């Protein structure tokens, strides 16, 4: 089977939508309240060094995915432990986003519907997309990105009459530890989760600059999230801290004349689109990682089995929506090994190995 490749544009769209993931709807639920948008700016700034590390790994091993790189550096046997960790992280994140999705639908639209059927439908769609391959995911991302942006911009323009621009004042009204804590959470969820994109980095053509790709898409994703957060703050003010799904609640305020209301449905659509992309990528990487771990011929053949495992994990994760949001406080520390330590170790070992190879080549 010919190797699947995606264009720079497709990769850009996948990364940007992956960043939006569940954050587009969960919005700025932060103790920083009206300073949530400042935490986003700092959170992205914190993430830039990690994005540079991820890009450097891609530059050192062009057209190779994270698992190939681990095997190249540590050997097949040595890489198994790290592959197991990354695969588990991908599987867990897939389950987390699936839970975000089902809790959202239950809380805002269908409180009497059990979450399991919603999760099954979501997993059926994402499994199909994952089995179709990363090229199909890239095409999906290119088509759906303008839809997401249109909805965001439309809700901003429609909300202008309802916005209170003084809601962002006073700037830096919260203590520095609160803002730092919020920034750290946003660094971890969603920016540093881009480590999982390395699982499909072999589909990115080597002519594509990984620095431009990751930093550019990361910045674009952060910009759209900033617009979303500012919209939510201007509409909700300090209530942004109280509400679970601030984007959805903010959109409920909006109506355009007497004929256009219930715009919050478009926010749900955004969540579905970006959730599908994020879950698909996580599922794809998890299946691929497991196939490397056990020496299978490819991730596609076991995608459905991995999706079933994700479903089983998702139903056991949280007892309530409160537990789900409470885990956001713990998540940055839990994710640190996967998002920071493992990539940094891989990067350092890759640099050493490449330097040695260059020395050997020069010596000949």
């Amino acid at each position, binding site marked *: 089977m010919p190797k699947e490749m995606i264009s720079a544009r497709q990769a850009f769209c996948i990364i940007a939508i992956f960043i939006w993931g569940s954050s587009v709807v969960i919005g700025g639920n932060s103790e920083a309240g009206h300073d949530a948008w400042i935490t986003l700016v700092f959170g992205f700034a914190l993430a830039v060094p990690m994005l540079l590390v991820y890009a450097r790994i891609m530059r050192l091993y062009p057209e190779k995915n994270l698992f190939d790189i681990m095997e190249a550096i540590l050997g097949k046997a040595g890489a198994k432990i790290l592959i197991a960790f990354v695969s588990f992280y991908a599987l*867990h994140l897939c389950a987390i986003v699936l839970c975000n999705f089902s809790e959202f639908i239950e809380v805002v639209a269908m409180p009497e519907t*059990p979450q*399991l*059927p919603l999760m*099954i439908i979501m997993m059926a769609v994402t499994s199909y997309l994952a089995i179709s391959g990363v090229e199909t995911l890239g095409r999906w991302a290119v088509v759906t990105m303008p839809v997401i942006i249109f909805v965001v911009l439309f809700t901003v323009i429609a909300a202008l009459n309802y916005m209170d621009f003084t809601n962002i004042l006073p700037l830096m009204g919260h203590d520095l530890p609160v803002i730092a804590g919020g920034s750290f959470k946003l660094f971890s969820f969603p920016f540093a989760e881009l480590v999982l994109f390395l699982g499909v980095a072999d589909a990115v053509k080597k002519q594509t600059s990984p620095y431009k790709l990751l930093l550019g898409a990361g910045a674009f994703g952060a910009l759209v999230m900033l617009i979303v957060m500012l919209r939510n703050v201007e509409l909700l003010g300090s209530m942004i801290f109280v509400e679970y799904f601030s984007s959805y609640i903010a959109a409920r305020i909006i109506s355009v004349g007497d004929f256009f209301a219930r715009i919050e449905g478009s926010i749900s659509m955004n969540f579905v689109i970006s959730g599908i992309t994020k879950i698909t990528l996580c599922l794809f990487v998890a299946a691929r990682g*497991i196939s490397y771990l*056990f*020496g*299978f*011929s490819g991730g596609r*053949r*076991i995608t*459905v*089995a*991995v999706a*079933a*495992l994700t*479903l*089983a*994990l998702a*139903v*056991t*994760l*949280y*007892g309530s929506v409160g*537990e789900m949001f409470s*885990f956001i*406080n*713990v998540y940055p*520390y*839990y994710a640190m090994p996967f998002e920071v330590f493992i990539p940094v170790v891989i990067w350092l070992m890759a640099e050493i190995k490449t330097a040695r190879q260059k020395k050997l080549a020069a010596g000949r």
Partner: protein
Amino acid sequence: MLTGIVIALFAGLVLFGYVPGRKKRRRKENIFYAAALAVSFAVLILYSLSITLPSPTKAIDGIVRMVVPIK
């Protein structure tokens, strides 16, 4: 109702997912596939019967809070 949905789902997965692809997959892949479906089926059946299952989130939460002082 939920139990019925789970049984129907896994019947579909076995009939339309596992069985047709069995010959194309290697033996190891088939073993993993069957094991994954079995584990998922067990967990989801218990969930559908409203049996409380241990949450990995609580375990992760406990471990992280042992190491890091989080409010």
